């Protein structure tokens, strides 16, 4: 064959054949043919590849599971930490909202000076509606100072230690507060009770008192500053032959959910006990 076709002719023939095949391929003649050939090849290659990957996964599974478990443990720890952080942030948000409301109250009543205090406990006896706060004489607290919340009056300081104080709430059975009813401006006395209910006593019969009327401190008696909101009248009891009317009061302060309070520090209670007449036989 080498003798019959010189080398140059062979090269030329191969080049022409290659160019021809290339031209045919570019013109799309081989597309269907290549599809026919390559399609089963691709399927076979896919199957082989899948088998190989499966075997590889099987071989490396133990190592991967260990890594995944480690990652899972780490993520669980991270999750727990984030959950704790969420709870903490929610608590901070609640505290922030209370402080914000207290600040609003303090801004609305600029004539008073305040010290914020946290409620750290309640009296062990269920007979007394007292709370214990974390501010004491070291912070300038004195016996008799009024205590308020963002909504209104809460009580007053009855005992002070260096770092804490006991506050008698207005719902305590021993509480008696001179109040004023708005809009009639009638005077009356507010009493607490063992059940936590507030009652208005000694309302003059001629006073026009209705449910929904506001109750504010009157300042009489010198135990509380005037014009602090206490609550609203919910019902009025009036008998024809009685000297006075009485009424039930819904306090504006939620005494079950007291967490932070403000102590009014620039109010000096007046001790009027020497002026009270003593019954002599």
């Amino acid at each position, binding site marked *: 064959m080498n003798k019959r076709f010189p080398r140059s002719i062979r090269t030329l023939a191969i080049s022409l054949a290659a160019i021809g095949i290339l031209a045919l391929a570019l013109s799309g003649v081989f597309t269907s043919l290549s599809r026919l050939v390559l399609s089963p090849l691709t399927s076979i290659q896919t199957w082989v590849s899948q088998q190989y990957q499966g075997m590889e996964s099987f071989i490396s599974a133990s190592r991967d599971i260990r890594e995944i478990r480690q990652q899972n443990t780490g993520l669980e720890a991270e999750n727990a930490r984030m959950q704790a952080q969420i709870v903490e942030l929610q608590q901070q948000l609640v505290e922030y909202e209370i402080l914000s409301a207290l600040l609003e109250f303090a801004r609305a009543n600029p004539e008073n000076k305040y010290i914020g205090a946290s409620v*750290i*406990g*309640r*009296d*062990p*006896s*269920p*007979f*007394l509606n*007292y709370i*214990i706060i974390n501010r004491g004489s070291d912070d300038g607290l004195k016996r008799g100072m009024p205590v308020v919340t963002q909504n209104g009056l809460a009580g007053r300081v*009855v*005992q002070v230690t260096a770092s804490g104080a*006991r506050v*008698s709430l207005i719902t305590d*059975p*021993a509480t008696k507060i001179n109040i004023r009813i708005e809009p009639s401006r009638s005077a009356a006395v507010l*009493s607490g*009770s*063992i*059940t*936590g209910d507030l009652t208005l006593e000694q309302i003059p019969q001629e006073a026009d008192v209705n449910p929904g009327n506001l109750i504010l401190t009157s300042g009489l008696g010198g135990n509380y500053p005037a014009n602090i909101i206490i609550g609203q009248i919910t019902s009025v009891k009036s008998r024809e032959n009685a000297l006075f009317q009485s009424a039930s009061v819904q306090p504006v302060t939620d005494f079950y959910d007291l967490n932070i309070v403000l102590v009014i520090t620039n109010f000096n209670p007046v001790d009027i006990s020497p002026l009270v007449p003593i019954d002599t036989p």
Partner: protein
Amino acid sequence: MSVILSIPVLSLITIFQSAVISRLPLNRGTADLMLVVLVAIALQKSVQDVWQWSIVGGLLTDFFSGLPFGLFTVSFLIVTWFAYFLRERIWRFSFLMQLLVVFSGTLITHGLSYLVLFLRGSSLQFNTVLQTVTLPSIILNFMLSLPVFIITQDIAQQINPLE
């Protein structure tokens, strides 16, 4: 159980009572953890210094409470005497004895508190106090009694095992 142990243990109980238990009322009544613990201690035959525990518990509660000083000490001493009286006379006592003394103790503590406040001029209606304060407190004290009794019994056995 050593009386020295009583000061930190009962201090923690007083703080827990004031900070947590007193904030969980049933109607107007609250559980008295100190009373329940002192009763459980007084009923343990292996514990000899029950009077000291009672005095320490009473003084600590008096310190935290706004009621006249000494009221809780006197109440707890009476309750401890009652528990001790039963313990020395009944050969084998059970958890029912704890419930009996807690029931009596709650009535004694509340009775004295009511009397003192009444004498001081507080307007307390007896029926209202019984229904809204005392009965709910007894229920709460009963609920606390079982875990407290078991824990106290275990601790007392660990510290002073009976022959």
